[in-house]
Structure formats: C-alpha cells, structure tokens
C-alpha cells in the first residue's frame, strides 16, 4: 500500500513519477469507504471528485505537495463545514480559513476530510461528540482516545497521509498512544492558533499527527512559525527539523520522573515505556531518575484553568451571529462550563482560579528544574489501555483523572512527542511521550526518529 510509505518516500516517489497524487487520493478514499463505516472517524468527507481534481492539477513544489491530509474538525476551513463536533456548529460554514490550513493548501497538500473529536476538545475518548463515538481500529469495542480520535484513526488506518490536530491537555498524544501513531504537542506559540476553535486559550496548541517522527518534522516545517493573525505565536525562527534528526544519542540524558510510574499505572504500560529508556540507553543515551513532587496537583491545576478558559471561550456561542443556541451543549461540556464559571465567580476566584495559576507557576519552575538535570523526560501517556465505550463517561471524576500524564505539560507550555513503544498481550498499542524544554521540538523529533530506526512498533497496522 502506497499509504504505508513515509512522507519523504511519498514525496520522492511523486517527483520520480513512480505514482501520482491521484493514486494517493484514490487509495485514501478506498480506505475511507472500507474502514470509516466501522470507525466513524470523519465528520465531513470532501467529495472524492473534488480531491481528485485538486490532485490532478497539483504542482510538486514542496514535500507536502500532492499529499492527502485531514484536519481535526476544530480548524476553520473556508466554505467547508466546521463543527468542533458540536451540534452548536452543525451547520457552520466558516467564511475564513485557519492559518495552518492555508499554509498546507499553499504547500500543495490536499484536504480530504474533517475529523471527529470530543466536542470542543472536551474529553479523552472521542465519545463526547454529537456525531457518534470514534472506534479504535485495534479493537472496535474500545475508544480511540481523544480529543483527537478522528485524526489519529485516519492516520493509523491509512485513510490519509497525515493529520493536524490540537492538544490542550493530551488531545494529540492520548489518541496517538492508543492508535499506534506519532503525534507532536508543540511548545505553546510554536504553531499559529488563528482559526482554531478555542478550548482553553492559554493551553491550546496545534500540531501534527503522522506515522513517524520524521513525518512530523516535515509537517512542522510547513505549519510552524509566527503569524501576524495570532499575537501569541512565537517569532522564534523555525528550524529545518527534518535535517536535524540525527543528534547523537550519546549526548542526551533521559530523565525518568519516578512519580509518573507510581500507583495507578498499568504494569504492561509501565514496562513498555521504561523499555524505551533501556533501548535509548543501549544506543548510548544516559538515563537519570528524577523527582517531580508536584505531579499529583496537575489535575486540579489543569481542570480549574482549562474549564475557566473554556467557560469564557464558549460564552460567544449565543445562537445569534452563527451556530445554534446554548441548549446544544453536552453534559460534559456543561460540567466544564459550570466548573469554570464557579471558579471564576466572586468569592471563589482567589481560592480556585488564582490559586491554580499560582501552582501553575510552581509547575513551570519544577519542569525548568528537572529539565536542567536532563534533556528530555520520558513519561507514559495514558495510565490504562483504551477502555470500552461508556466506562469513562459513567464517572466524571475518573474521566478527568485518566488524563493525569498529559495535563501537566500544557499549563507549562513545554513540547511533547508521543511515539508508539509496544503492545499489550491483547494487541492494544502502547505509547510513550518525550517531553523537553520550551522550543526543543528539534531534539524530541530527533530522539523519536532515532528510536523509530531502532524499533518497528510504529510500522504495525491494525487488522480490520
């Protein structure tokens, strides 16, 4: 299958004329027809003939030219329905495009679909959606992870070459781990958020989901960079990530924060994630155990600030200027709006919202400290294998606690790369994350790339 190839291989193949963009588009749509009815990964599918017409006219100017991709349905696409998986926006046709979409189109990539997700990003299982849950291709009785379940499933099942998602507290990394794909949560501000439907503005980041770290590096070269339409985007120069993938592992120290491996972590997952350290050590890296004593406080920090910001962001949906009215929020979104409104209200602001922002400062200091003792932190992504449908939704507190490994990074702003690192006895994929200093994407992608040269977990596909 052509879609098994990396972006580099596909780009070279297109240039050499070994196959055409039309071939790639057709293969995607054949897979969509075969798999999507079982998986429900798409909210909108661009008509095949539209994508084929684009493909037949494409000029090969960049490494992404002629490659079919999908977007999480939280990015505005001019003229193409954009819902954030909510009934509130079920008929919303944006009159403008997100910066990352415009950049990808300018690079010659071909949009083929808008992907299912937890509504507004509110969830870690892609069950909290008004468009029906996304199913995990490794076991369709289980969730795909979230909030970006749709983008990850599309890449895992070769319904697209790559995807762009959004990560506010794990929404790229969690589904990457549970579907055996590679995803990058970027440093806050590294990629423009313009035209991305906001969940929690000071946590939201936009990043790639793909088959390999090298693919992510190539996508980053196109989507990253300052944007005059997003005042929080960083003016730091964008490195040529794909040319910087061979930093010597012998010069790298990998930190193991012991609190991330305590009670509550599935033993199979623990073993697989720690095996990454062993593999990197055998390849020359140094390993160091470190401590992050604040760890357990990341849930209250994240789930006070995130909902506070989301209650404010979702206040714009009035059913007057666009979209349906506020009766269309799901129970999970209502809970988050209520928590946020409560935390921001008079009398509770200091004890909840401000306190959380102060502890956030302590988290920033803690990450700074441990990342001065090592170059990257190796952490699990999810404490458990993907659950069966309904398990998480039935207990709202447990639903939040399941995010413990992915919510400390966003309040701090640091980047994290999710990579496949093994399988359970029951053949469910396991992922690990490498977390680095602000703007260390280059290093994370380099370690990820070399790890993927040593291992073949990322090459495995679900059998559907």
């Amino acid at each position, binding site marked *: 299958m052509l879609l098994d190839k990396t972006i580099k291989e596909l780009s070279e193949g297109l240039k050499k004329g070994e196959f055409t963009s039309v071939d790639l588009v057709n293969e995607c749509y054949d897979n969509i027809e075969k798999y999507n009815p079982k998986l429900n990964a798409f909210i909108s599918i661009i008509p095949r003939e539209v994508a084929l017409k684009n493909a037949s006219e494409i000029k090969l100017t960049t490494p992404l030219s002629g490659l079919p991709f999908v977007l999480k349905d939280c990015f505005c696409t001019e003229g193409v329905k954009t819902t954030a998986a909510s009934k509130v926006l079920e008929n919303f046709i944006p009159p403008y495009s997100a910066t990352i979409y415009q950049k990808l189109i300018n690079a010659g990539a071909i949009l083929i679909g808008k992907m299912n997700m937890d509504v507004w990003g509110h969830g870690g299982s892609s069950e909290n959606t008004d468009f029906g849950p996304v199913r995990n291709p490794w076991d369709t009785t289980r969730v795909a992870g979230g909030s970006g379940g749709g983008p990850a499933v599309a890449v895992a099942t070769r319904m697209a070459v790559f995807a762009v998602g959004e990560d506010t507290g794990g929404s790229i990394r969690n589904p990457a781990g549970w579907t055996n794909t590679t995803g990058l949560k970027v440093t806050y501000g590294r990629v423009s958020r313009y035209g991305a439907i906001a969940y929690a503005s000071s946590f939201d980041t936009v990043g790639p989901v793909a088959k390999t770290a090298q693919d992510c590096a190539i996508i980053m070269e196109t989507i990253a960079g300052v944007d005059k339409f997003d005042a929080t985007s*960083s003016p730091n120069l964008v490195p040529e990530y794909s040319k910087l993938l061979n930093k010597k592992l012998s010069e790298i120290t990998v930190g193991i924060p012991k609190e991330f491996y305590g009670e509550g972590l599935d033993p199979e997952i623990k073993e697989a994630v720690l095996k990454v350290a062993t593999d990197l050590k055998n390849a020359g890296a140094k390993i160091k155990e470190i401590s992050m004593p604040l760890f357990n406080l990341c849930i209250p920090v994240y789930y006070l600030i995130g909902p506070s910001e989301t209650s404010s962001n979702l206040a714009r949906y009035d059913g*007057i200027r666009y979209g349906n009215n506020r009766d269309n929020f799901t129970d999970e979104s209502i809970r988050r709006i209520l*928590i946020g409104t*409560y935390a921001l209200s008079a009398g509770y602001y200091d004890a909840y919202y401000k306190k959380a922002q102060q502890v956030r400062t302590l988290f920033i200091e803690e990450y700074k400290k441990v990342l001065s003792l090592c170059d990257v932190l190796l952490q699990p992504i999810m404490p458990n294998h993907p659950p069966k449908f309904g398990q998480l939704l039935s207990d709202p507190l447990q639903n939040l606690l399941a995010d413990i490994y992915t919510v400390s990074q966003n309040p701090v702003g640091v980047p994290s790369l999710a990579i496949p690192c093994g399988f359970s006895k029951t053949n469910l994929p396991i992922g690990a994350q490498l977390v680095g200093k602000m703007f260390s994407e280059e290093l994370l992608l380099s370690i990820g790339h070399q790890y993927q040269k040593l291992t073949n977990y990322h090459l495995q596909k679900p059998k559907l």
Partner: protein
Amino acid sequence: MSKTIITDDVVAKVAKLARIDIPSQKISLFASQLEPILEHFESLSKVDTTNVAPTYQTTGLKTVLREDVIDTDRMFSQKQALSNAPKSSNGYFVTKATIHK
C-alpha cells in the same frame, strides 16, 4: 478552603451566570457530579503559594502590537458576516427582544 458543598442552588446560580438552561430534574445530578470533582481540587489549598505570582500565559512575549492600519484581507462583507446567522433582516442580525414594554 472549607469543605466544598455544591448544593442544587449553587448549580442553578452558576448555570444562570453561564446562560445555560439546565432542566430542574438534572440540577441535582450535576450537583452530585461536581461535588467530588471540586473536593479533589481542594488539594491545592495545601500548597504554600505565598509570594508566588500567578501565571496567565507562557509565551514569554510582552505587549504584542500590530500596525494601526485597516487590514482589508481579513474584512468580511456584510453578506459574509451574516452568512451563518440563523436569522437576519435587512443586513442585520435578528435577536430576541431584550426590552419589553
């Protein structure tokens, strides 16, 4: 912080502030779900944050300004601005009456 008690009245009040109509039979359900969540958050109260400044954003950027010019690239026509409005009339959004005689 004292022990949190999320009563039905608190949920109703907060829902009203957030402009969300929760059916009365669901108010208690939300109250019972939010109680353990806010109780879990009480762990923050044990952290000493004396003299710790709150962090509201992590960009490291300060006062990002743009030129004070009209950006016509991003201007909507009236038709575009109204294109998603559930109800419009004579080039205006139609809202519910907010003042009643």
